[in-house]
């Protein structure tokens, strides 16, 4: 079945790719189709002329436009003989960045194998950074500035994906093995920031060569009522490119340029050249067990997954352990019950961060680390244990009652409960209750409709505690000549005095959507649809948060006769977001 579908899809892709939606389709098979031919296919040759102007990252984000004209070749051949099926396709757009190949083989449904390869270009943005300029009047040296070390670079990534697999079926057991190699290579923009003396953002061109290889292996057992499958997957990622090197600025007081700020940073120009934008190598493996039990029209399915993901450069890892199960039971001929349960745990390693605490060479704090200079404000050291906010245990339960109260009318009533427990984050537990009703119905012979109404109520949604509005601690300028417009507060005192919680998650959310299609005759169909969502959070301590989205639309299909047809549509969307916004001058 898969091979037959593949043949149809391959033919469709070839025809669409050449811009001929219908004209080349073979005639429909008769009621008693002849045996499939041993070989049939399509060969297409062509050429394309391309002209562009303006920003290539938008007008040709995924296209090859280096040359004005490109030849293309596409060939598909497929067939079947004595239980041997094959399906081969090849496409080249005249450039190594635009290729697509596939081969599928099926030998008597015992051995199925495939290999595919595709590549495409992707142009990447280049941030000019020229908005990163700012300054204070304190001596004319306290500034935010930027440097783009490669301002004319045009960034582009070439994506390649080689994927292969083989299935061998022996009676009721299928063994499968798969391999995928994804590559991303080219150049992209990376940045770093040097603090003290100035906020200095520097951009570089990084050559990268990312390789992600995935190996999967497993077996599937099929019995009369039970299907069980085990899959092992191993994935390795590494970037084989070279990292840019940068010597950070000398850490000095930004206004006076005194050499008294070294104890506020972990490294500066004295450390020499340092790597920028280092991507660690990652290894992930997972074990997945799936099972499905079917009895009459009822079914029970379940999945259990255990996965381990590790940064192999730093020996940091997190584990995922979770399961999902679904029960479906028909209740007579007009009703059904579906129940879902899901629970998983993310456990990320805690890390001891040994902060490099330097001493300042000059000034009143000469010879002291930052904590030694301000002993009343900080502990004896900045060393700390990073406990991950990623650690969590979400639990979800859902139940849905389906009903068919009348012919061609279906209704679903559902309730969902979700609790997310976080081990270390300030919001320890978020609980969401969801109610919904959905349905579809045929309204006579010339109309049908579909709708869904869903309400969610969330207690303690994810938020950032004490994220904004520092208290007014010094409502007068610091003394000096000239007088500073900034208060003399240390930035940490401003951060520590913040009072307002901020979030982008609601406590209540209402979603409504509806669709009505009218087909007054066989040649005309008109569909009107509307979608509306309103999300609000009025539990914040200093403000409210809200987002409202509204989207109406209409589609029309009209076929005047057998010789022409017209489709048209229009969709409008409006979204309004309201939130408290607060920023600190220079972020300290």
């Amino acid at each position: 079945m898969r091979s037959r579908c593949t043949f149809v899809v391959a033919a469709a892709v070839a025809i669409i790719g050449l811009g001929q939606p219908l004209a080349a389709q073979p005639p429909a098979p008769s009621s008693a189709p002849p045996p499939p031919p041993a070989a049939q296919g399509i060969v297409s040759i062509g050429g394309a002329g391309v002209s562009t102007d303006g920003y290539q990252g938008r007008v040709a984000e995924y296209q090859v436009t280096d040359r004005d004209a490109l030849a293309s070749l596409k060939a598909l051949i497929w067939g079947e003989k004595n239980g041997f099926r094959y399906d081969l396709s090849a496409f080249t757009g005249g450039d190594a960045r635009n290729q697509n190949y596939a081969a599928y083989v099926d030998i008597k449904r015992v051995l199925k194998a495939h290999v595919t390869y595709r590549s495409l270009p992707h142009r990447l943005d280049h941030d000019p950074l020229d908005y990163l300029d700012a300054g204070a009047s304190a001596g004319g040296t306290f500034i935010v500035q930027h440097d783009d070390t490669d301002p004319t670079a045009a960034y582009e990534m070439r994506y390649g994906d080689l994927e292969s697999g083989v299935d061998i079926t022996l009676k009721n057991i299928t063994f499968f093995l798969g391999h995928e190699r994804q590559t991303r290579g080219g150049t992209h923009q990376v940045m770093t920031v040097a603090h003290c003396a100035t906020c200095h953002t520097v951009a570089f061109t990084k050559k990268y060569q990312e390789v992600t290889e995935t190996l999967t292996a497993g077996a599937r057992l099929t019995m009369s009522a039970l299907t069980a499958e085990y899959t092992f997957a191993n994935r390795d990622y590494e970037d084989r490119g070279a990292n840019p090197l940068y010597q950070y600025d000398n850490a000095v007081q930004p206004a006076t340029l005194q050499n008294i700020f070294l104890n506020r940073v972990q490294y500066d120009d004295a450390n020499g050249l340092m790597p920028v934008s280092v991507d660690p190598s990652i290894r992930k493996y997972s074990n997945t067990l799936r099972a499905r039990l079917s009895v009459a029209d009822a079914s029970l399915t379940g999945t259990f997954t255990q996965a381990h993901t590790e940064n192999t450069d730093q020996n940091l890892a997190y584990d995922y352990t979770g399961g999902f199960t679904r029960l479906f039971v028909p209740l007579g001929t007009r009703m059904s019950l579906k129940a879902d349960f899901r629970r998983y745990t993310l456990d990320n390693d805690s890390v001891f961060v040994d902060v490099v605490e330097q001493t300042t060479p000059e000034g009143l704090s000469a010879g002291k680390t930052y904590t030694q200079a301000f002993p009343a404000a900080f502990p004896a050291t900045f060393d700390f244990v990073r406990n991950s906010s990623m650690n969590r245990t979400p639990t979800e339960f859902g139940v849905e009652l389906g009903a068919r109260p009348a012919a061609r009318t279906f209704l679903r009533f559902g309730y969902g409960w979700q609790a997310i427990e976080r081990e270390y984050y300030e919001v320890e537990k978020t609980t969401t209750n969801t109610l919904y009703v959905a349905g579809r119905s045929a309204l006579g012979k010339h109309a049908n409709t579909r709708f869904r109404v869903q309400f969610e109520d969330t207690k303690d949604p994810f938020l950032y505690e004490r994220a904004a509005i520092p208290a007014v601690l010094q409502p007068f300028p610091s003394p000096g000549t000239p007088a500073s417009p900034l208060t003399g507060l240390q930035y940490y005192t401003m951060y520590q005095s913040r009072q307002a919680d901020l979030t982008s998650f609601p406590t209540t959310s209402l979603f409504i959507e509806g669709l009505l299609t009218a087909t007054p005759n066989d040649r005309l169909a008109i569909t009107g649809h509307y979608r509306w969502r309103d999300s609000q959070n009025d539990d914040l301590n200093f403000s409210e948060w809200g987002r409202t989205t509204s989207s109406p639309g209409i589609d029309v299909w009209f076929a005047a006769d057998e010789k022409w047809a017209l489709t048209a549509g229009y969709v409008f969307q409006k979204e309004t977001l309201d939130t408290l916004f607060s920023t600190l001058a220079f972020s300290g």
Partner: protein
Amino acid sequence: MAGYDNTTHSAWMGVQAYPTSRAEVFANLAWNRADATITNFAYDGGPYAAQLVGLDYALQSAEMAGFSNLRFTRVGLNGGLNVRVSNPLVVNVTVDYSKYDDQDPYLFTVTGRYLQIFGGVTWLF
């Protein structure tokens, strides 16, 4: 309080015609329009700044309140002709044209144009 409002319009129309039993003509037109703006954000850091020559200070001025505003239009046209010159042979021509009009640039101007004309021959066996 501040906010962000955005609206999008998307309209399209497609026509497919078979003037003869061996020919097909098709054309698709798409129009997209997006507008977005920061709302209720009256920030002006200019009075607090000393501006050095050669620096732009975009984020330290009233300009910041509209810095990420968006006003963008895209028009796309795709059309073509397929002619079955004989039973196994099809000749086709397609034209793809897109015009991007960035009326409120953010970071960089994304105004531009893309035109591709394709001609080919397909043999079915």
